[in-house]
């Protein structure tokens, strides 16, 4: 009798297990990213909770450091070890490089079902797709040709009308400097120098020049007088930064503007997050405007989650994550916090502040070009060569003519 009772118990137990087993919990997603600071992490938690609600666990793999440099090293090690993470935060050409290696998963079915082709701008799709197949889900669109100004200081120098061309910009900077403030808040790290460079190229030669030089790498345009003028203007800007700018983190430069110590900062729209967190209101405490001369043009970069090829069990979770990333609700929630614009053009802009609305409008109607400074115009090797020359010139004393020569040579060498 005892034996029979035992058998029944076992049977019941195995049935229960079987039931649990058949409600197959989808595999966890392992996510490699560098969004480690408070605000960004909180925004990402929205995604994590969403997935958890679907029964998918989130294995966090954060590797902080700049624009993901350390994370990319870790990624290589993992791919080489045949142990790639499920999803990886990535920028621009890196996505193409990994897809070329055959490491990425194909999401065409999901894209078709969700109608991504219609709502994601073509300029972004150029990076989300590899040879026509969807490999990544874009999270946001940042643009780099923004200027963030302290309204109080700008009003003080009489710049109530924001400058719309380079000369106007310079005269405003002069006035701010004369009043004793730091005119241009800047952090002297190579990528920040390069971010400024994006805007200066755009304003000096226009969209065509930018495309010819930064995207097509036309040698004639790269060695032209216009490029020399670009470097001249970089040198001009150098004169408006304070003495301690070297090595300063970008958010500390933003803090200078927030705390009424500096007039303006040329930085991508992730800077907005700093202002918002400090309780500043756009239009009242700070203003955002395109780098003078680049109105209607957008040098963008887009964080995307790339799905890596793994086993079939993980595929389901991957697709669930991609779907969640692209959902309008997440796009709105994440980007409001991050300061960027959604990657989908059909997301309502109610939750966004004025600067955010401006960004979204520009995205819809403006001329979109990949940012060189953030890996969206040329592959990493060439970008590195360009940034080397830019940062050397900015921090050193060589002439614009020499810089141009080094630029042409460096790019050739990196091809």
């Amino acid at each position: 009798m005892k034996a029979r009772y035992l058998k029944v118990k076992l049977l019941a137990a195995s049935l229960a297990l079987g039931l649990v087993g058949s409600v197959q919990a989808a595999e966890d997603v392992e996510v490699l990213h560098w969004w480690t600071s408070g605000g960004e992490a909180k925004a990402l938690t929205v995604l994590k909770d969403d997935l958890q609600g679907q029964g998918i666990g989130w294995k966090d793999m954060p590797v902080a450091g700049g624009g993901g440099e350390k994370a990319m090293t870790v990624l290589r090690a993992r791919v080489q070890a045949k142990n790639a993470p499920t999803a990886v935060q990535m920028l621009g050409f890196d996505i193409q490089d990994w897809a070329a290696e055959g490491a990425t998963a194909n999401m065409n079915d999901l894209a078709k079902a969700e109608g991504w082709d219609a709502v994601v701008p073509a300029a972004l799709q150029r990076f989300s797709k590899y040879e026509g197949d969807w490999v990544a889900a874009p999270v946001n669109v940042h643009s780099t040709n923004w200027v963030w100004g302290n309204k109080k200081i700008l009003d003080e120098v009489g710049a109530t009308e924001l400058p719309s061309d380079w000369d106007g910009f310079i005269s405003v900077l002069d006035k701010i400097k004369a009043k004793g403030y730091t005119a241009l808040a800047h952090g002297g790290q190579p990528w920040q120098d390069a971010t400024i460079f994006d805007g200066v190229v755009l304003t000096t030669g226009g969209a065509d020049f930018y495309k010819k030089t930064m995207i097509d790498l036309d040698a004639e345009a790269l060695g032209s007088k216009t490029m020399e003028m670009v470097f001249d203007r970089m040198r001009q800007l150098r004169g408006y930064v304070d003495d301690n700018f070297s090595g300063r983190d970008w958010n500390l430069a933003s803090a200078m503007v927030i705390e009424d110590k500096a007039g303006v900062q040329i930085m991508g729209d992730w800077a907005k997050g700093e202002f918002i967190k400090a309780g500043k209101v756009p239009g009242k405490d700070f203003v955002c405007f395109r780098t003078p001369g680049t109105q209607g043009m957008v040098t963008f970069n887009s964080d995307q989650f790339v799905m890596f090829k793994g086993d079939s069990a993980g595929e389901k979770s991957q697709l669930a994550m991609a779907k969640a990333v692209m959902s309008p609700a997440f796009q709105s929630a994440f980007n409001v916090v991050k300061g960027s614009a959604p990657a989908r053009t059909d997301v309502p802009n109610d939750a966004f502040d004025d600067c955010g609305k401006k960004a979204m409008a520009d995205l819809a109607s403006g001329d979109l070009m990949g940012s060189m400074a953030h890996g969206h115009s040329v592959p990493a090797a060439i970008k590195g060569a360009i940034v080397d020359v830019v940062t050397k010139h900015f921090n050193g004393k060589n002439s614009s003519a020499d810089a141009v020569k080094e630029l042409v040579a460096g790019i050739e060498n990196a091809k």
Partner: protein
Amino acid sequence: MSNIVQNSGVDSNRFWRVLIYTTLLVFALFYLLPLFVMLVTSFKSLDEIRQGNMMALPEVWTLEPWFKAWGSACIGLTCEGIHTYFWNTIKMVVPAVLIATILGALNGYVLTKWRFRGHRWVFGLMLFGCFIPFQIVLIPMSQVLGNLGIAGTTAGLVLVHVTYGIGFSTLFFRNYYEAFPTELVKSAMIDGAGFFGIFWRILLPSSGPIIVVTVIWLFTNIWNDFLFGASFNAGEGAPMMVALNNLVNSSTGVKEYNVDMAAAMIAALPTLFVYIVAGRYFVRGLMAGSVKG
């Protein structure tokens, strides 16, 4: 002892003593400054840090940054502070140090008491392993770990650290055992002791100083490693330095310097502890011929 300062007149001697002590104290300050800055900052509130002088003592001492660093600071999406990573690292470092030390001891023993033809070559080749920059081995090592199926695990990381620690431990033990009198070994052998018997009963008991040197060296290097830890075990099992990097080098948001410094101090405590407690054995171990060339 090499106490050389001879008494050539009391005053001049006094002068030299004062000079010596002053020099030593000045340098002590030089060495202590960064630690002082870190400690002092970790006990301040954020406002005080922003407005105040980095070297001033806190006006209001607070332990809050320490609690936050240990238990609630956000590393990526998990906001549980660094305590998990602390234990992760202990779990990884202790086996790695133990294995590398034992292997080093055995290797040193073999290379000095059981010489064979080509032993110099073998030692030289093994020694070179100490000098290889780690970035070079990253890619091929990940491939190997992947093939072995232990990538992304603590075991894999232990293997990596043991591999690159053997060079040092062999060096230390070999130099130490080189100075060990062979007569004792030979007489033990006459008494009938075997390979392991000699090691266990004769050499190991007098290896105290060099074991300390080796353990200190290995512990410090493995505990402080970032590159291998990030590449081979990022994520939940990550070691301390990876977590600390995530905390300290986040590029956006308010930098909570006090929490950062508290976390850095916690990360430094084990190695500091080892150095301060075992430090005097360190010099003694060095004296026993380990690094004299």
